[in-house]
């Protein structure tokens, strides 16, 4: 009777192991352990939250999430009149964009591959970007600059602009 019971236990444990039972037990980790292993020293806010032991889901603050350290990127696309592009979807002909820019409407940049609109600024304080962008209206351009994002709006502070052959 005892030996039969032992045999049944051994068989069932062997079956359990062969079906990947041990793998499952490895995967199931306590949530705190997972949170701690994903922490990096670069996120002090979230780390302090873990230490304090809060049970709320850890979510980075809006500012941290949206405007992390900006890197210089190169984007390819075309310049648009922001107001008419957003309100009507029209890409406008170069002359119309030029006219609109001259009265003070902002020229934006449409990244054709990411389908994203950027408001263009210059790194110099109190210098509008329109004058620098005007010669490139109507041609495919590349922009090099740092990108920022806040409240759903993307801004690129351009350090260089040129004709794109991409």
């Amino acid at each position: 009777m005892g030996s039969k019971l032992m045999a049944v236990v051994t068989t069932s444990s062997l079956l359990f192991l062969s079906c990947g039972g041990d793998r499952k037990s490895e995967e199931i980790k306590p949530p705190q352990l997972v949170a701690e292993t994903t922490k990096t020293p670069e996120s002090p806010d979230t780390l302090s939250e873990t230490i304090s032991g809060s049970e709320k889901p850890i979510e980075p603050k809006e500012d941290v999430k949206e405007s992390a350290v900006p890197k210089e990127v190169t984007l390819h696309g075309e310049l648009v009149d922001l107001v008419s592009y957003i309100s009507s979807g029209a890409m406008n002909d170069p002359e119309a964009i030029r006219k609109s820019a001259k009265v003070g409407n902002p020229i934006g940049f449409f990244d054709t591959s990411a389908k994203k609109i950027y408001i263009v600024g210059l790194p110099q304080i109190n210098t509008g970007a329109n004058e620098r962008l005007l010669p490139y209206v109507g041609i495919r351009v590349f922009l090099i600059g740092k990108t920022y994002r806040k409240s759903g709006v993307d801004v690129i502070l351009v350090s260089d602009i040129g004709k794109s052959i991409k």
Partner: protein
Amino acid sequence: MYAARIPLVVLFTVLVMNNVGLSQQKKEVTLHGEIVDVISFVSSGAAKGTEEVRKSALSGNPLGFYDTGKKKLYLVGVPEMNKAANERLLPYIGIRVFVIGKVYTRNGVDLILISDIGKSIK
């Protein structure tokens, strides 16, 4: 069988077209918030002083409207062709304002074409 389906398809198409039509008819909304310098607001996140925003706007940087309730940033335009919004917004820098206008969204960016602006007491 197919003939019976045609009226249904037509009805469905009409309904869809009507819905599209309705969504394209923009309604005017009233928003409360403040005028900001879009470039510095997004890039530095800091709210600038009134004089700095004015200087930046005069140099050609676009002014925007920040809805303080919804925490949403809008680019601002005026419905008249070839007229910029900056001139119209300049007197309202540094005070809480309301704007009335139609809101448009494209590629995640919001724009309001303002028909009216004034000092908000809300």
